[in-house]
């Protein structure tokens, strides 16, 4: 399917060159916008109403329990990815969460780990590929799935593979497995209702808003702790020209890339002469 969508991307790209001033991170914008509209229509007509209905008929504690249980089994694959990324402490903490929540949290129903100061560290194979040095690649909106990129699309196949060993995919009974997949989709969508409603209220162009948010967030996940110490640098344009600091090698498209000369505390060391 990925190959098909890539091929389709190529076709559409050849067919329409109507996007003015394309974002360098989104060379397939014409195609992506098409898929975005399709996904949006599917969401507004099916998935969102189902999820809203789900939040109406199930009491909050039940929804929280369901959400926590899916998150709990997902922690196993997240821990494996932390390990693959060389983030050993994250891996240990996430495994600790899984054991703690599975036992004291009654099969993951209650997130006792978060309540005791160990919040979730979400992780996936796309992030692992990023940590290994693969760039994001062009932004890509996948049918039925949503925002992704070439790298994260490849990551998704890795996640699917991991999922067949660690999560719902490991269940042999086809009926149970498929029902749980369905519930998982509804649960994920329901937990995003606030976020998507907010986007509807604040975005000028929801497509660019979602794209930029996605790319920012993925970038931050790959950088991990380092990303938090590198603040976006807005000073190169817009701000009044000032000589108080020389921004080290800033680039407007990827401002969170560690700048040379920025040390751990986020302060900028004087550039070497």
């Amino acid at each position, binding site marked *: 399917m990925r190959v098909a969508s890539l091929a389709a991307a190529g076709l559409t790209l050849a067919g329409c060159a109507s996007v003015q*001033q394309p974002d360098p991170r989104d060379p397939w914008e014409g195609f992506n916008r098409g898929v975005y509209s399709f996904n949006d229509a599917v969401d507004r007509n099916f998935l969102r109403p189902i999820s809203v209905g789900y939040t109406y008929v199930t009491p909050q504690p039940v929804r929280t329990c369901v959400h926590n249980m899916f998150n709990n089994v997902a922690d196993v694959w997240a821990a494996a990815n932390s390990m693959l990324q060389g983030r050993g402490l994250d891996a240990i903490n996430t495994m600790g969460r899984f054991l703690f929540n599975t036992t004291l949290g009654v099969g993951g129903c209650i997130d006792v780990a978060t309540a005791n100061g160990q919040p979730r560290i979400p992780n996936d194979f796309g992030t692992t590929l990023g940590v290994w040095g693969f760039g994001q690649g062009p932004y890509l909106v996948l049918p039925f799935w949503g925002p992704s990129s070439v790298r994260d699309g490849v990551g998704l196949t890795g996640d699917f593979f991991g999922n067949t060993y660690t999560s719902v995919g490991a269940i042999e009974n086809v009926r149970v497995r498929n029902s749980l997949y369905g519930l998982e989709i509804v649960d994920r969508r329901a*937990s995003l209702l606030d976020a998507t409603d907010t986007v509807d*209220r604040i975005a*000028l162009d929801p497509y660019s808003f979602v794209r930029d948010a996605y790319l920012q967030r993925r970038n931050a996940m790959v950088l991990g702790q380092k990303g938090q110490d590198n603040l976006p640098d807005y000073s190169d344009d*817009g701000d009044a020209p000032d000589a108080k600091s020389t921004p080290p090698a800033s680039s407007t498209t990827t401002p969170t890339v560690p700048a040379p000369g920025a040390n751990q505390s986020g302060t900028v060391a004087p550039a070497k002469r």
Partner: protein
Amino acid sequence: MRFPAISLLQRLALVGLLGLGAAQVVHAAPDANGAPDKFVQQVADETLAALKAGGGVKSGDVARVNQVVTTHILPYVDFEKTTRLSAGRYWRQATPAQQKALAEAFRGTLVRTYAGALTRVDNQTVSKTLPFRGDAKADDLVVRTQISQSNGQNTSVDYRLEKTSSGWKIYDLNVENIWLIQNYRNQFAQQINQNGIDGLINALNQRNQ
């Protein structure tokens, strides 16, 4: 839940705040000239207290969150700077009148953005300021906070502040690793390229209706 004593204290403090509110006394307004992390904590506490005073946020009552944000957060936000940085290089192409209109038009969107992180506030919601990292003497820094809801979900909210002559001012916001200004730059540029600066102002004003 972890520290019952603290939650009891908080409840007492809340009762105290309610009493003060009833007496129309403004007490312990956030100190914009103090330590930045304390200042953010005060702003967040005051905002949450105001939201909780009405029994939390009933689902869908976004108007009320917007109103609380307008009275309790907006005074400490340098929305002109946020607008200027979002417009990037186009800011200097705008006339002073356009700049003023643009900042004014963007304000509504900013309020809704700040409100977006607060739509699920209930009586258990707590905003915790994370330990401060980096250079405490800098005049442009980030204070990181975590909003925890009663259903156990945490939202990370970071505030970027600048020291001005009138004390600390918030000018950028990060919700779950997404910076506000960075997320509006492309949308601003796109609108300006298509319809000019006035087109952007119109588009923003339409969203405010």
